[in-house]
């Protein structure tokens, strides 16, 4: 019974030490990194940058070759490799 109480006591003591440790690290962190708070001001309007981003992505997307085009090209190459006689026909239709 006594040893169980001692066990509880030790555990409580350890938890208290751990809490104190955590508080000390929190304080250290708060001193090392100051709060930004709510007064952060944006110097400029970001909408032009946003529009640029949208345009850039649209151009990129337009320039991207769809996967089925790659699949078709791959299929044709494979077909030409298996049946070389068809190469002139394929080239004719290109």
């Amino acid at each position: 019974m006594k040893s169980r109480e001692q066990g509880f006591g030790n555990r409580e003591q350890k938890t208290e030490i751990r809490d104190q440790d955590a508080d000390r690290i929190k304080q250290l962190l708060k001193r090392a990194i100051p709060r930004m708070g709510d007064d952060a001001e944006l110097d400029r309007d970001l909408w032009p940058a946003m529009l640029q981003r949208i345009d850039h992505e649209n151009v990129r997307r337009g320039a991207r070759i769809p996967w089925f085009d790659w699949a078709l090209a791959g299929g044709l190459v494979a077909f030409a490799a298996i049946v070389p006689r068809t190469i002139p026909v394929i080239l004719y239709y290109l």
Partner: protein
Amino acid sequence: MRDEESDVLLRFRQGDVDAFETLFRLHQRSVFGWALRLVRDPSAAEDVTVEAFWRMHQAHARFDPDRGFEPWARRIATHAALDWLRRQKPESPVPPAMLETTAASATGDAAVSEEIRRKTLMAFTRLPARLRATALLAVVEERPHKEVAEALGITVPAVKLRVFRALRLLRKDLTEMGIKP
């Protein structure tokens, strides 16, 4: 007024660019402020803000007008900021902007020496991005755990666990660097 707001949200959901611009102009400051809390660098926070709004623009069809724009925007901005934090190499030195703002406030606090401050920052930048973000919001910025949980898309106990892990890792790292917290 309320009808106007919900109309803008509905139009945004349908992919209307004018509605998106209205929401952008209305929320860019708050999203920037939130991103700045996480990345601690105004220029990076601007990039994160644009990236977050780009993601919102892409995901407009998944937006639920009933749940409000601000929490949704904040969650997306948090994830964009997390991605930015992940791209920063752990070995890279402390961001200069962070050092500048810290130095300004440290002058009044002589108890914390420059050495301890620098080592604390070094140890902090070595933490995994998700722990860093949680510790920044919950410990440094002292935001309520519920708000942090919503922004990160996790539960309140998960926030507490991440804070605990961040502090434990910091303690270990600082002890290895010869600083006994």
